[in-house]
Each structure stands twice: as C-alpha cells, then as structure tokens.
C-alpha cells in the first residue's frame, strides 16, 4: 500500500503542531451562477493522517466544499492548495490531481454495467494503464479488505446499499489516493447497514489515511475525527477537536445545531 498507511494514528485527538497540511483552503468563495453565495470565504487545513469531519445544517456548503476540492466544482475566489500546489483552474489539469484523491458519493454511483470487481479495477486500468491481471488481483484484495471477498462477480443491483458503498470505497482506494473525500457516505443507507460502512471508514482512519468526511453521523465524528469543522450558510462558524465541538462548543449556533439533532453530548 502507499506511504500514508505506514504512519499509524495517534491515540489522542487534536492537532500536533508539526504535522503537514495536505489540503489548505484559503479564503475560498463560490457563487452559483447568477445567484447565492455558497461558500463565503472558507479557510481551513487538513493535515496528513488526519480525519477531518465537516458538519452543519443542510445547505451550509459542506458538500460543495468537498466537490471544489477535487474540481467537480470550480471556485471563484481564493485557492485550494493540495500538497503545496494550488489546484489548477482548468479541467485537464484537475484530471491529474484527481487521481491522487479518492471520492465516495452519497449515492454510491457504482457503474451498474460492471461487476464489483470490474468497478474497482476500472480506475487503475483506464487511468493508470495497469494490466487487467494486476488490476483485478488488487481489486480482489481490496474487496477482501472491505469484507466482500465473495461478491467479486456480483453486479451492483445484487448488492445492498451498505455493500455497494463498501465497494465504492474500495474503488476509490484502488487508485492509492493520498486523501479520501467522503460526501455524506451513509446518508442514503438503511440504518442496519450504516454500521458496516462506518467500520470500514474507521479502519481506514486507523491505518492513517487522510480523510475529509461530510457527515451527519455525530457519534462517528466524535469517536474518529481529529478535527471537526462546523459550517453554516457557507461559512465556518467553529472548528476544533471533537472534545471542544461536541462537549463544549464555544459558538451558540453550534450548540443549537447539535441540540436540534438531539445531541446530548
């Protein structure tokens, strides 16, 4: 596996002063054409081996920020810096960057005309030029890693939501990304299957993967995140380690958001 996996996570949460930012957002502004400002000057960092959770009410811009990270959406003002370099503004330049980031979608977006194995193998084959044998062997290993070794020949419609999402995670991992972006990975799942996906994500975190997770699963955020960012209406209203956000938030809106979710700490 890649180098990131070799650095085991720290048992304690919070930010070490000497860790390196993988992603940095500097005053990012985005408007939807002729309309509302969706991101209103976002500045934050994601450090190596860190798990950052983005939480906040719907429409706060969390998903948009994630999609700006890998260029599915383009920003208007400011910059997104990845591994020390600002993200290019053109589509083709972004293509090279995207190989180094993995994304997991709320709706899984598995390719229905390919098997689970095929879904995982197509990235390396089409983008990296990996041979079919190597790609499929790696895909089989990844399937085992997410607990679906026996589903290699299954098509997405034959899998449950939780299984599909785990295949989607494996598909993203097949590219050996330096950072994984999760866009509300469990929001479209039945309650029974949420756990199996969160467990895979927890395992990834423990292996040291740098992760940015947009989520409503507060328990997951509290237990697994190193850093929590609370967004509301396009701005960051508070950010800090989970102990701060979930137990002693400093901003009133954070408190009311969490209490609306029934969060009692």
């Amino acid at each position: 596996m890649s180098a990131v996996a070799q650095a085991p996570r720290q048992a304690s949460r919070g930010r070490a002063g000497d860790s390196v930012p993988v992603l940095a957002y500097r005053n990012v502004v985005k408007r939807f054409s002729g309309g509302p400002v969706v991101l209103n000057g976002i500045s934050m960092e994601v450090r190596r081996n860190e798990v950052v959770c983005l939480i906040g009410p719907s429409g706060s811009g969390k998903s948009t920020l994630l999609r700006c990270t890998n260029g599915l959406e383009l920003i208007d003002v400011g910059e997104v810096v990845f591994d020390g370099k600002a993200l290019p503004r053109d589509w083709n330049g972004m293509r090279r960057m995207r190989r180094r980031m993995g994304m997991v979608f709320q709706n899984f977006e598995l390719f229905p005309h390919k098997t689970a194995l095929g879904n995982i193998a197509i990235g390396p084959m089409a983008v990296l030029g990996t041979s079919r044998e190597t790609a499929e062997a790696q895909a089989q290993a990844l399937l085992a890693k997410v607990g679906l070794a026996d589903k290699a020949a299954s098509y997405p419609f034959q899998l449950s939501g939780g299984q599909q999402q785990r295949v989607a995670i494996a598909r993203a991992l097949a590219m050996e990304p330096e950072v994984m972006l999760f866009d509300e990975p469990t929001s479209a799942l039945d309650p029974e299957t949420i756990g199996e996906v969160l467990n895979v994500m927890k395992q990834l975190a423990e292996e040291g993967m740098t992760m940015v997770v947009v989520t409503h699963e507060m328990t997951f955020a509290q237990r697994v995140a190193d850093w929590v960012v609370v967004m509301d209406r396009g701005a960051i209203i508070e950010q800090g380690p989970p102990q701060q956000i979930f137990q002693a938030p400093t901003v009133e809106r954070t408190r009311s958001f969490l209490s609306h979710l029934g969060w009692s700490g």
Partner: protein
Amino acid sequence: MTFDWSVVSRNAGVLLEGVELTVLLAITTMAISIPGGIALALMRLSNVRALSAASAAFVELFRNLPLILVVYTAYYVMPVATGLNLSPLTTGIVALSLNVSAYNGETFRAGIASIRKGQSEAAYALGMGRWQTMKEIVLPQAVRRVLPVLASTWVSLFKDTSLVSVISVGELAYTSMRIRAQTFRVLEMLTAMAAIYWLLGYPQAKLVDWINRRYGVTE
C-alpha cells in the same frame, strides 16, 4: 371475375429475392445508422458550437422531411453533386441512412442525457477523462437503455424500405408490383405483397412489444 392465386407460387422465387433485398436494405441501413446516430449525438453534446449546431440542424432537417422526398432528391441530386453514377440500390441506402441516422441521433442524445450526472462524476473522480468516461461508462449504459427504441426504429425502417421501390430498387414492393404489371393479376399480387409484409412485420412488432416490456426504462 376469376382469380388465379397460383401466380404467387409461380413467382415465389422472385418474390423471395425481393424479400432478401428488403432485409439487406434494412440491415445495411441500420449498420450505418447506429454509428451514425451515436456520432450525431456526441456532436450534439460536444462543447464545440459548430459541431453541436451542425448536428442539431441535420437531425431537425431529416426528421421534418417525408422519406419519399429524400429518396427522390437523392436519386436526382447525388449524380450531379458527386459526379458519380450510383446504382439505385446505393442511392436508396444513402437516403434511408440519412433518415434513420437522424432519428437515431435524437434517440442516442436522449439516452446519453438520461444517464445520471453522478455516473460521470464518479468516473472523473477516479481521474478518467471526458472521452474515456463517455466510452467506458456513459455510452455502454445509454446503448442498453435505448435498445427498445432502436427496436421500434428497426421495425419502421423495415417498412420504409418499401419506399425505395419508387426508384426501381428491386426489393419486395417493387418486385410484387412488377409481377402485377406483367401478369395483370392485380388483386392476387397486391394481396400477396401485403400478406408477405404482414408475415414478416407482425412477429417483429410483437418482438418489439416484448422488448419494451422486458427492458423498458424503470429508473
């Protein structure tokens, strides 16, 4: 009035040749018009304004012209425009292909547009390029999705081959009517012609119904 139905059996061989040519016309036209339709759809979706406009104009033009007029025009215009002396068969195939490609162009455009945006996004997120995504992810799904429509288009095409009889292409309609002219057996030959088309066309129509039931779009 006496009827002589044996005129049909006596000319069975010739009629069969007519049927063969009908089938050949349909297959050849579809073989040209499926890639043609895909090409038109991709042009329509391209970012290059000229390509997109040209494709839209082509599709609108041929969907709004009677096919029989296209056949006649091809017959008179092509020799002058290209300087080549093409056989009626080739001219007929050209006319049919222009027409069916236009319909397929719209079919494939709608099919491609019906594939969720998220599918392309997932491919881009892996680092795939626009053409790669189209080739590996979007087109395979779109083609499966439009199969029922293509089946209907095939049945229409099969019937439309009868129109090239007006430029003396020896398919089933032309052959039947020529035998009628030679033998003066009007009712027998015309009824036989209708019956043969019916025998060929009825199962095809039922097959299309079955395909629509089985593979109709659900998403």
